């Protein structure tokens, strides 16, 4: 529902040449964010991309994923455009993929391996036991 062509329409083909005092220019413009004209301008984008990239290092792969999603047009465009933003977006993508692979492999090992692999530690690590032990579900 939200993925309307308006972003595509705003961000789609072509470049706008905004000249100095050029008031009438009809060449379309590529927006760096996925929201197109409703999103950020190119200058603000760099600051956002950089801060998202930095904060992602605090164990926040989801933030990296959001960074990639937000600047999807930058991600998909040719390497020549938006060079500064592109660095951070690519970095976020790599970080997200790496972290997710690691996390998934750990979670799957834990789930599939179970007691056989871990021994009694499994019972202590699994979440529902931890919740019961700490009384986390007893907030009612």
């Amino acid at each position, binding site marked *: 529902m939200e993925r309307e062509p*308006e972003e595509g329409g705003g961000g789609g083909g072509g470049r706008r040449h905004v000249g100095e005092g050029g008031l009438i220019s009809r060449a379309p413009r590529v927006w760096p964010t996925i929201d197109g004209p409703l999103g950020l301008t190119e200058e603000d984008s760099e600051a956002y991309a950089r801060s998202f990239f930095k904060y992602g290092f605090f164990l926040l792969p989801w*933030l990296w994923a959001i960074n990639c999603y937000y600047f999807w047009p930058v991600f998909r465009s040719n390497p020549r455009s938006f060079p500064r933003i592109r660095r951070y977006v690519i970095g976020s993508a790599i970080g997200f993929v790496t972290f997710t692979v690691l996390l998934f492999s750990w979670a799957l090992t834990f789930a599939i391996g179970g007691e056989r692999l871990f021994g009694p530690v499994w019972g202590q690590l699994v979440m529902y036991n*931890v919740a019961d032990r700490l009384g986390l579900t007893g*907030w009612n």
Partner: protein
Amino acid sequence: MDESPKPITILDSLGEEIIRIIAPVSTCMFLVVLLVTTLNSPSSSSSSSSMSSIATIAYSEKSSDSIWSKLTGALLNSLIFVAIITATTFLLVLLFYFRCIKFLKFYMGFSAFMVLGFMGGEIFLFLISDFGIPIDCVTCVVILFNFTVVGVMAVFLPKMPILVTQCYLVVIGMLVAYWFTLLPEWTTWVLLVALALYDLAAVLLPGGPLRLLVELAISRDEDIPALVYEARPVTNQGLESDSTLGVVGRNRDRRVWKERRDVDSDSGSNLNLNLNSSSNPSLGDNSNSPIEALSSVNDNQNEARLVIVEEGSQPSGGFVGGSSASELVAPLIERVLERPDVGEAELNQSIEVEGIGLGSSGAIKLGLGDFIFYSVLVGRAAMYDFMTVYACYLAIIAGLGITLMLLAFYRKALPALPVSIALGVLFYFLTWIFLEVFLVQCSISMLMF
């Protein structure tokens, strides 16, 4: 509707705006129904009648009480709850009046954190326990941490992806609504009715706190810092043969209008403000002056935007908020849910918004409080049976449609709760009393269904 090279049907403009507000409301309701049915099944061990919170401070319902005592207890609970809400809303008005915007924003972020982190975490735990998913605590913590932090950023930061912000607001609404469904039954229904009446009074009466808030916000031309769902503004695709300018212009002229206003408010150009309160024709007439007034801005960016503003300032022929006619900023109406001081708090205080209005970008804004209470109603109906869910869902959507029509008609902030809650409660009781018997008899006699 406008005649244009590609004729825009009413479905494209008006229908699109309506759908963009009904879709998230429906999603929220659907998710709450899903949660209610999976977590409150008889096999689960969660007790639904022993929740202590500020809404049951006066009376905790026990199933053995008589109807009369249940009713009076529920009334007492609701009155206390509404009184507390009124007090906190007045406090909010006071804070807004003294321009403690930072505090309000911080509070908003904090409440989003509490809802997502604690309520969301607990529901996550319920789900894990119920389905026996063997997930370990490290992964859990990482996932929850990510979810919460990004959620707080989505609520806090002005410029996250629109879809992400909208999704997180729906999730917050869903979580709070689920917690409300855990209240005792009679209390829930009476509370819904009481809140609908409160909403009506608070928004429409001259002394009502929400009305004061809205008027303050309009007079200062600010947005109230609150949890509000804003639908994406609709663009009229076919209006310009040059796809970019038309599409871009429509969107940008509304957004940029607001941004220009923010930027230039200090530099003393009140032109925008005047234009904002003017009606349709004058906007078209004044289209030339802003170019001169603002052409002193050196930035290329801004100049480009200015052009778009002017070119896009024809009335889009769209819907209420859609037309750039009067940028009537009728932001929002707020409510505060109270945090109980009884031990662990399930209900959390959050600055939420009730009521429906027109955002400064011309998109429809619906307060998160409305999402929550619609979902509470449907969730409660789901605890009975699915046919009440369907009936209440249709009633609420009909009520929302009526409210949107009234919004188009009156063009000011309106309470979104009363009509929908009234219809919803009415349909629930009618279904419960009449329809169920009918359906059961039909099914037994193999007549229908």
